[in-house]
Structures are given as C-alpha cells and as structure tokens.
C-alpha cells in the first residue's frame, strides 16, 4: 500500500458525512437565518474535527481571528470548495494548502449565509449570545463531560455484567445449599423443623432456575461483549469529545450492507497531524503508522456479531429507515471501549420491526403500497410500521 496516497484519497469518500450533515441542515434551516444562531454552533461541529478556536493547531490551523486575517468572500469560497480554489491557482489558497502539509480540506455543502454564520460564531470566540440555546439535533447526543471518568453507558454495562456474575455465585451457593439441605433432610436431621428445609430448598432452586434461564437465553448471544482491541481506540474521544460524525469513519453505512471499519488511511486524515493522544501518548497512535509502514492491516475484534444465517443491511436501516446509529449500537459516544449494548436477538429485531414507523410518505418507493396509502388517507391507520409492509417476513433477513 502506498502511504503517500493516503493523504488524498479518502477525502473523496466523505459524501456520507456530508450528505448526513446536509440532511441535518435541511431539517434545521426551515428559514434562513442571518443573525448568529444556535444553528451556527451546530454547523461548526463539522469544523471541530480539524480546527479549534484558540485551542491551537489540529489538522487544520487555529481559527481564532480568522475573520480578521482573511477576506470574507475568500473564506466562503475556500470553505465551500477549497480544492477548486487551490486548483484555480489562488495564491493565498495555495499557500494555506502548502502550509498545512497539503491535506485538502473537504468541500462543504454550505450556503453563503451558513458560512457567514459560522464565521460570526468563530469571531465570537465560539460562544453563542445569550438567549440562543443550542438547537437539539436529531441525533440524541447526551451531554459529554470530559472530566467524568466512567460514563452512564459504561457503568450500565459493568453493572449488568457484575449482576450476572453475582447471580452465578448465588447459583453456586444455592447448589451447595441444596446438597446440604438434602443431606440433613435424609441423613443427619440436625434441623428438626422440616419447613425450613422446604423453604430453603425452594428458594435455592428458584435462584438456580433463574440463573439457568439467564444462561440459556444468553446462549449464542453476546450482550455486553466488550473485547480488547488491538489499538486502544476510544469512541468517547472521537465521537464524543471531538464530535466526529459516525459516518466520517464508517462511511459506507449509507451505501453498503456493511457500515465498514475505516481503512487506516482514513485515520491518517487526522492522525497525520495528531500524533499524540492525551491519555495514551504516542503508544496507540503509533500502531496506525506501524500498520501502514508494515503493510499489515489492523485486526480489529468485531463486537456486534450476527449469526451467519442473518442478512443485515446498514443502507436499509441508516439511509432508508433513517435510524440513528445509537438506536442499535448504544451510546457509543460515551464508551472508551466499545461494547455490544443490545442483545441483537431476533426478538429484539422484531420488537423494532413491529413498532417502528416507515418513511412511508417520504419515500416514493412505498407508492406501490396502494391500499396502505388509502388506509392512511382515510385515517384507518395513523402510521405504517415495518410490520405492515412485511417486516416480520422470514425472507427479509433469512435467505
């Protein structure tokens, strides 16, 4: 593999990221806003992956005071499509490009007004004027506190795991207890009151039963599976703190059945500059360089596994169904080490298929369902669930 190429190539693949964002924008911008609004803060989120305001240089330069340094018209052009400007031979653009190690800044589908908004937001030092609350994005992003060591999601997983451990220990104790009770009941007769035996016996058997149920339903499932990865990669840092869009790295989620584990070259988009982590130093990031240098791919451990006889397609769920990643994968933003949050059992899938609303009127494909459309119009049903269009059919997932 050619390392020099890595700088350029993956940037063409950001369409998922951009279109996802574009979708978000179209939802948010019902009326174009000229003043500095909460939307600008949201728009700036995509800049944050590479830029800071007064926080020093990341991949791209620090943006503090950028509005004073550069002309606004030039900035709009550059932000919308930096490579076009560089290609046109604009002196400043070429200079900026060269100064930043020739890492092209991806083009952004932002309107002039939107860019102006972002620039105002930057000029204000990344603060919103009082009264402008941060708009709620469609993605339910919980507040992230950098100081908090263990997040809600992680604690939940740990608790669940511990409780199942506890249950196992109880079950073993109960087993021993059953033996003791039986010995006493039949041979030793130390306790005279037999009802104690029976109560103890019943409750022990109850615990053993519950444990057995727990184990057997869990058979073949991997809920709370949290393997060690070859690189100590934290989603909490990337998706949480840095607010990098999921589909920036998992860029095939909208175009393929696989969401895709990003190629190492995608890591290099940022890590060609970010060479040191706050918590792990150079140790973990160096593994990416080593992989590229030795031409040896990184062997990640797959966390969310489905059995071989199940066909699952990300495009269907993410692009067509417009599901959020978190609905299946949990609050990834809060996890340092990724764990499987849901059971991924068939029952769990079907629960959603039975209740989840289809983009029925929005997507022209569903125009073929004439009767359902009539029912919807007539008010016989108020929404169309996946179930109503065959979401419970075996051959939707098994073939």
């Amino acid at each position, binding site marked *: *593999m*050619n390392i020099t*190429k890595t700088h350029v*190539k*993956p940037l*063409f*693949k950001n369409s998922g990221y951009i279109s996802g964002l574009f979708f978000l924008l179209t939802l948010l911008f019902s009326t174009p806003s000229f003043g500095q609004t909460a939307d600008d803060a949201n728009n700036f989120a995509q800049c944050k992956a590479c830029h800071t305001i007064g926080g020093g240089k990341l991949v791209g330069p620090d943006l503090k005071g950028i509005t004073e340094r550069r002309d606004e018209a030039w900035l709009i052009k550059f932000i919308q499509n930096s490579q076009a400007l560089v290609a046109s031979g604009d002196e400043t653009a070429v200079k900026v490009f060269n100064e930043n190690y020739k890492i092209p800044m991806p083009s952004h589908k932002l309107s002039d007004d939107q860019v102006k908004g972002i620039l105002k937001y930057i000029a204000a030092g990344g603060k919103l004027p009082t009264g402008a609350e941060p708009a709620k994005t469609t993605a339910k992003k919980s507040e992230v506190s950098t100081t908090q060591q263990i997040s809600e999601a992680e604690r939940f997983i740990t608790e669940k795991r511990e409780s199942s451990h506890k249950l196992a220990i109880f079950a073993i104790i109960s087993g021993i207890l059953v033996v003791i009770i039986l010995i006493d009941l039949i041979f030793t007769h130390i306790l005279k009151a037999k009802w104690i035996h029976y109560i103890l016996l019943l409750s022990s058997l109850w615990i053993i039963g519950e444990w057995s149920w727990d*184990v057997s339903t869990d*058979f*073949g499932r*991997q809920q709370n*599976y949290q*393997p060690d990865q070859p690189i100590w990669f934290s989603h909490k840092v990337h998706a949480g703190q840095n607010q990098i869009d999921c589909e920036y790295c998992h860029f*095939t989620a909208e*175009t*393929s*059945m*696989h969401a*895709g*584990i*990003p*190629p*190492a*070259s995608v890591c290099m988009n940022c890590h060609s500059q970010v060479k040191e982590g706050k918590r792990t130093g150079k140790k973990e990031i160096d593994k990416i360089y080593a*992989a*590229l240098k030795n*031409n*040896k*791919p*990184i*062997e*990640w*451990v*797959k966390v969310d*596994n489905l*059995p071989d*006889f199940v*066909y699952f*397609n990300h*495009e*269907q769920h993410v692009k*067509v169904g417009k599901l959020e990643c978190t609905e299946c994968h949990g609050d990834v933003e809060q996890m340092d080490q990724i764990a499987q949050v849901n059971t991924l059992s068939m029952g769990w899938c079907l629960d959603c298929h039975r209740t989840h609303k289809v983009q029925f009127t929005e*997507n*022209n*494909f*569903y*125009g*073929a*369902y*004439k*009767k*359902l459309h009539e029912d919807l119009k007539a008010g016989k049903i108020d929404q169309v669930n996946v179930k109503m*269009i*065959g979401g419970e*059919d*075996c*051959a*939707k997932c*098994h*073939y």
Partner: protein
Amino acid sequence: MEKKYWQSLENYKKMKKNTASDNEIVPEFSIDGLDESEIKGKSSRRDFLKMMGFSVSAVALVSSCQMPVRKAIPLLNRPQELTPGVPNYYASTFYDGDEYCSILVKTRESRPIKIEGNELSPVSQRGTTARVQASVLNLYDDARLKNPLKGGDNSDWKTVDKEIKEKLEAFKTDGKKVILMTSTIISPSTRKLIAEFTDLYPNIKWIQVDTLPMSGMRKANETNFGKAVIPSYHFENAEVTVAFNADFLGTWLMPVTFSKQYAKGRKLKDGQTKMSRHYQFETSLSLSGANADYRYQIKPSEEAAILLKLYNEIAKKTGNAIVAGPAVATKVKTVAKDLLNAKGKSLIVSGTNDLQIQLLVNAINNLLGNYGRTIDLNTTVNLKQGNESDMMNAIKSLRSGKSGGVIFYNVNPAYDCAHKNKFVKAIKNLPLKISFATTMDETAALCDYVCPDNNYLESWDDAEPVSGMYSFTQPTIQRIFDTRQFQNSLLTWMGNDETYSDYLENNWKTTYYPQQSQFSSFDKFWFKCKQDGVYNTEQNSADPPPFNPVPLKASKPGIKGLELALYEKISMGTGRYSNNPWLQEMPDPITTATWDNYVTISPSFANKHGLKQEDVVTINKKIELPVLIQPGQTEGTIGIAIGYGRSNAGKVGDGVGKNVYTLLNTKDDSKKLLGTTVTLEKTSKTYSLALTQTHHVMEGRPIVRETVLGKFIKNPASGNEKHEEFIENANFSLYPTPKFDAFQWGLSIDLNSCTGCSNCVISCQAENNVAVVGKEQVKRGRIMHWMRLDRYYSEMEDDPEVLYMPVMCQQCDDAPCENVCPVAATTHSDEGLNQMAYNRCIGTRYCMNNCPYKVRRFNWYEFANNNSFDYNMNSELGKLVLNPDVTVRQRGVVEKCTFCVQRIQEKKLEAKSENRELRDGEILTACQQSCPTDAIQFGNLMDKESEVSKSNETERKYHLLESLHTLPTTSYLTKVRNKNA
C-alpha cells in the same frame, strides 16, 4: 386422441400395456447401499442410552465453550471503486478456444462470484451457456498450477525464462524448427503479437488446432465463393430452417447467438402468429433435434445422399439440372416444398466437417437464394480456424527429427488428438517442450517447461469473434497464483519489457482508435471499450460474392456395419472443463445423465441384441462403456459423447467416463465426429449410471401442454383446454384467498421458447451456493439443484417428440408445504414468496413429501467442509466462489428456490435509496438473466403493466398441476409446434 407422455422406457412399456402408471410407486429415495440397521431403522435401548449420554455431554461441552472471536479487518487503503458489501460488475469476454461469449463478471470484495450475460453485445445478446456460467469455478480450481514448472518440479519465472530464451536463440541460430501450437485465436492483438514473435524467431511455425475443426465448411466456401470463411447465419430471418447433424442450439459454432435468433423467429408474443419451421436430420438425438418441428433419423453415411436428393428436388422445381446420386429412402418432398415456399427466407446448415457435404449445403442455399439474406458471407465468424492437415503435418515434422521443439497454448493434443499415440511418440524425444496449460493436463505432463497461463478472469485481451465486432477481456481479480498470461510470456521471450495490457492498449491506440470518429480522445475511447466490453464497427453490407458452382456428388450410404456418431455434450464440450464439478453434475438435457459418458442405442437395437440399460459393451474390443437406451437414436447407429476419460484433469474429473477421441473419423486429413464404423460386443458386466430421470416423475398428469401452430391460430387456447376446465370447475378452496398490496412476485416460463439448454440450472447453482453431491448421491435421488429441466417424450418409442419444462419452486399461494411444517420454518411472505428459514428447519421433510412439484431438497449431509464431498465447498480456494448474500445450508435442513430473494431485496433497496418506485424488469432472477432464449420472465403480478402480468394474460398460460389448487405464482405458456395440424 390425446397424446401420451412418458419419461423413461419402463414408463413407456407400462403405458403401452395399459397398466396404469400411477399404480406404480416410484420411491423417491433409493435405499440401495445403506446398512441393514439403517434400512430397518432399528435402535435398541442401549443405543438410546448411548445417544442420550452423548447428547447430554455434548450440550454440556458446547455450553461451556466461549463464543469465537471474530475479526473485522479493514483494508489499509481502500481502492476507490471497492466498497465492502457492494458488488462491482466488469464487462469481459469468455473465450476458451471453442466458444465465445461477452459477459459481465460480478465481483464481491474483489473476487468474481458470478458470470452474467452482457446485453450490449450484438453477438451473445445477454445470453450465456452452462459452460460460460460454470467457468467462474475454474478460477478457483485446486488443480491450477501455482507457479512455473521445470521438468515437473517447481521453479521460478527467472530461471524458466532464461533457459527457454537461451534454447529458442540456439534453435534460431541452428535453424531448427519449433512449432507453436495454439487453439484458434480470435484476439487481433494476440495474433499481431504472435506474428511479431514468429518474425523474431523465424524458425517458429505457428499452427492453430481445433479439437473439432470446421475446415470442411471453410474449404467449401473457398471453392464456391473464393473465401475460406465461416459466414454468419441469421436464423431469425429464416422461415424454414433445415439442419443436418448440426446442434446449433446446443453446441455447434455459436449456440448462444443462434438460440437468441432462433427464439426470436419463434416467439408468439403480442398476438404474433408467425413462427419459423425447423427440420432436423440427425443421427443421435440432440438439443436441436429435441426442439425441431419435424425430426428425421438418418445414418451418418446417408447425409450426403439425402442432401443431394433434396438438391435434386429443389433443382427440379427451379428448372436446374439434376445430378445423379445414390438412392436413399428418406423422403424429402415436404421439406423441399417448404423450402421453395420460403425462398430467400430459409437456411440449410450441416454440422458435418466434410467438404462434399458442405458443397451440397452451399449449392442448396444458393438455389434458394439464401446468400445475403440468411447467410452473410461478408460478416464472417472467426472461430474454428484450425485445420487437421496442419496438425498432421506438424506430427510428421516433429517425428522427422528436424524439429527442435514445440510450444502448446490452450491445446491438449495428448488427450484429444485422434492420433494420440503417434503424437506422444513424436514429441517424446524433442529437446524443448513448453506448455502454457493452467493445470497439469495430459500434454503439460509431457513437457519440460510449464509456464502456467492466467485464468481468463485474471487476464487482459481482446477478441473479434465476428468480423467487425470486438470485445474485451479485463482482469476482475488480482492473480491468485504466480502465473503469467501467455502473451506476457511471449513478450518476455521477445525481450520486450512491455506488459500485455500496455501492448493491447497501444495496439488499440494505433490500429483501431484512428478508424473511428465518435471519441475525441483515446482515453475516452478506451474507457468506453472497457466499460461496455464491446466495440462494434460498421457492418459491411455489400452484395454476397458470386457463386461459383462445382460438380456435386454424394458417396453411397453404407450398408454394413454399425455407424458411430460421436457428439459433444452441452455440459462437457470437448473436455476442457472435466474438473468442474458443476458441469460434471449437470444432467444432460437429452439423457438426464450426470457424471459419465455412455453408448446411446435405440430401443429396437437394444431389443435385437438383448441389451439392457447399464449393460457394459466393448467398442472395437477396446473401450468399455455402459449402454443407455436412447429413444430417437437412428437404427444401426450408436452415439458416444467426447470430452470424458481425462487422466490429468484434477481430482474431480480424473477417470470420469472414457476417452473416445481415437474413434474420430480422420479420413482425408480431416476430423469428423461422424462416419466411423465400429463393432459392439456385449460383456457380462454392468455399470450403474446416475440419471436424474426416474425420480421426480410426475405420474402422467397434464403437465406439459402443447399444440400445433394451425390449431393455435384458430384457437389460442388450444392444447390448454384443461386450464379452462380448472377455472370453471375446480377454482375454489376452503382456504382464504391470499391478498397482497404492493408486490406479488411471479415467474412466467414460455415453453415455446425454452430449448432445454440448462444454462439456468448452472446459473442458479452459482447464484445460490447449491452444493455438488457426487455420483453416488445423484443415483439416490439426492441431487441438490434448485431448478431442474424435466424432459418428456411423447408418441413413438423409437421416434419421440421431446418437450422440456424448467421446474423450480412454484411459490404457491396455497402452498401445501407450509401447512405441514411443525415448526413454521416455511411460511408465506407479504410478497407472495414461499419462504424457507433454514435456521428454523428441523428436517422433518414433511414439506418435501407434501410438495406436489418435488422441488424441495434435503441436505442429507454437510456438503461444505466435508471430505466425503471433495468438491468446491471443501476447498479454501473453491469456497471463494460462494455468494456471500446466500446462506450455505447445513446438514439436516430443507432448501429450495427462493425466486432469488437476495436479488429482489437488492433491487428494492436500490429503489428505496434512490427514492423512486421499482421498475418492471429491474429484478432479474439468476435463471432469467442469461437465458439465451428469453424464455423466463420475472416481475410483479400486482403491476398489471409488467411483462409477467402481460404474458399471464395470454390464453396459453397455465399452472403446473393447477387442479390441486395450489395457486402457483409460476406460470407456463403452452408449447406450439409449427406442424401441419
């Protein structure tokens, strides 16, 4: 009187004796070869305890096991065009030396998994053959050579190149002759390269060798027209086609092209009532004979005499001179009359490689004015350029001792040469023998150096199968082994550093690009060529060259002796694909036999000589083969398939059948399948054949429905009266009628178009990961194919009419399989599909017993990773061909056709993603996609405008066993024969 249909001779005899065949119970599964305990099914109390102990401990063991750790390994650097999980299609070309086809290669994660037809090609027009479909498996053949060999030992390219170059140089200075023996090469760039190679080494003589040449036709056209060419034919323009021993729908010259044309002339779509008429004169029953309206049985030695009689008949009517010829019994008056009525719109072809016969064929075509109309001499076919006399001269010169060496490319004379022993002796002591074989075949095993060629899916090339129609081969996968394309080897030995892909590109840049005006830059032109896979130039529409008559003659038909008719099987061809298990297990559409070749004899011959099916006979006291009684075989002749009896094919193909190439007719330095007389002697041995014929019997119900054209014109519903009856009397049920909203998938099969070529069977196998089970299991009726071609005979025992019917899951709305499943593993979907959830199936096989169509298959064994089934699914390499979207079924579950639900889902998702409605014709099932006659239509029955709905509107439509009220969504259209009513 109603016609009676039968499937096997036993069946027929019973029918004749009026014993009702439905009293006979044909066991679906044979118990032959099972242990006594298995047959009795006894298990003692001890066995029970043992089993219980085992299961308890197994469960305990399994439950204590950890889940396996699965890795997700991304690419370091993703190529732009590769998205994991999304297939890429590349246009390419299949050419193996015999057959040409323009194809699309479906790749997943950079590995080719399926071949589809390329609709942009005017030659193959989206059609393929079974062999083309199966060729993808050859890429993953374990028998492929993994690096160059020297003296049978592993070597490397550097050593091999150095030594070969030195030797070639030495021969050049000594002036010692070297022969470069190749198959017919249709690639203009390769031809140019070989010319340059032989210019550099003038001592190298290049000859082209065909296993089955067509030099007779080339010579005849040279005599009559001054051009030694094979013309292109237009069966679609012929109202009357007469074929003599030419299986143009199955194996002759360009079966895909001809099938497309033939079907076009016989489609009864949109109220059309015109249909071409097809006469077939042949010795053994072939696919074309099976489809003919009238079939005549002839002996090979009579062919010339019959052609002359036909010529005289036509000459008489057109006022031309009559040529005296030998007498022959076959009546040709009606044929001549039909031909005269269709002057200029008829076509006579003969598949016999004989100058005399081809001259007669030319003379008749000329009398009828077919040149320039159904036969185009200006657009020529470039296949089959080989000449047997070149081969004979080569052997002579190799034996003379003057030759220094021989180089083989894509030929295997040590296996398929008629003078095998002579040939082997001739090359034995040569100082230099080089082979480019991809596997250690019979010839490569005799060579000093083997420089393995790439598989065609790893290669660059171009092709010009028909003059002016070009197509391109491009690699669809990185080379799997350390192999090198033949052309690259030549370039290296020429001391040229260029790769062949550059050479090819340069050749197109300098030769073809300047000839066109459509593209402004070469890059655009070249990109388009690679993207489309084809490039066509203006066709020459000049008048046909003048006909130069020569005196005609016909040799006397033989009276004595048993005449032999060798033939090519649709699956095996000339034997290149012996190691391909898909093709070995493909039932022959004529005999329904798998895994063997055999002697086909007529029923009356069998009676006369007291021969039974599977009796072993010796041919010429040398070759032992079993007998297969084949209705339609001409009295006094026998047929044997070539392409079997390989000794160096690989683990699958070695020792399957017998090699009969030594029986080829090689009189007059030509090579003919027909014309040898042989002796046949019975032995006391028997040999069992794996036929798929005697199971899946449908017990004499009105299954295939047919009529003749005259009746059809009067009443389009003729032959389909039973459908009317059903609608009126039996179309009711206690079950509620199923209702659908948006989609109900349906399939319509036009029995009038289906020729029985079995392309769909292999296409389905490749798409749906269908397992190969081997001869023993086929014999027990356990073949796993999801779709089969039922073959029915009608009328006379010795001269039957043949009907084909593709049968796959009928996806019934009132499915009998669904309500007997105790675990609801098979259920009905919202889109009318009869679903099968393998992970839920517990293998009771109730569904199989209750299915009236017998389309469900049970996995009696684990077919993947099982050394007892050592085919592609038991090899790491072979498994790469599996379709990742389809589950590989495990032991103990039932499987069946799903209407390619993975393709339905894929296209639905595509439509959803693009925010549009699904288009009709967008979803193509695997069987439909590459059907060379477009006999299969798939679509949405809820959409009244869809093609499938429209064909269901016609009065020819019926359902299989509709009286059972299973309400299948697969429908059939009656077969119409163009016969006088």
